[in-house]
């Protein structure tokens, strides 16, 4: 059974609308991450978290918020979606103390903003 799951897997949103992407992990990892993947850019870190109640800005946080209500769940929120946020979004979790720890990725959410 998959240890990192994401929902929805596909989403079409309208410009200016609110979008929430959800992630759940059963690895019991403290750290969780949100990335977006675009051709030519690889994966870029949006937000990450050290544990429940913690959210930290990554490299490209503008236009995104994050929420970590529990150890298992980490959400990415687009309050006012724009077409430039059309992308594939990946959630990942990592081992506690994760200095050089492996990150485990979910299957991704394809978001299209019209």
């Amino acid at each position, binding site marked *: 059974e998959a240890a*990192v799951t994401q929902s929805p897997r596909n989403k079409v949103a309208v410009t200016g609308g609110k979008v929430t992407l959800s992630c759940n992990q059963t690895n019991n990892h403290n*750290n969780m*991450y949100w*990335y977006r993947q675009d051709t*030519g*850019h*690889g*994966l*870029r*870190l949006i937000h*990450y978290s*050290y544990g429940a109640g913690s959210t*930290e800005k*990554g*490299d490209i946080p503008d236009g995104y918020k994050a929420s970590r209500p529990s150890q298992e769940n980490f959400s990415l929120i687009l309050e006012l979606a724009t077409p430039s946020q059309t992308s594939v979004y*990946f959630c*990942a979790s*990592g*081992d506690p*103390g*994760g*200095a*050089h*720890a*492996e*990150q*485990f*990725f*979910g*299957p*991704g959410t394809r978001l299209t903003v019209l």
Partner: protein
Amino acid sequence: QQQVRQSPQSLTVWEGETAILNCSYENSAFDYFPWYQQFPGEGPALLISILSVSNKKEDGRFTIFFNKREKKLSLHIADSQPGDSATYFCAANTGGLSGKLTFGEGTQVTVIS
């Protein structure tokens, strides 16, 4: 600015050949370099990794060669198989509790039989 760069963008090899994927970085503080493999429709998964104290890491048909002085590393896929067709990402981090990774742009590998 892209702190981790990969080349080529795409690579096609015959079955049985060795595929060579290149990676370079700018930040001298990077000390851990994992390579992730991604198949279409899936999330990336760790393939092999190396610490900067080593200059070579082997795992089956996959080998990382690391040159700290030149800030370069490469992934060699020996005896390439059609099942190796995927996108490969070089990544780096500096340690610390965040475990944050900086990824390169990726190399799409196609193995033809």
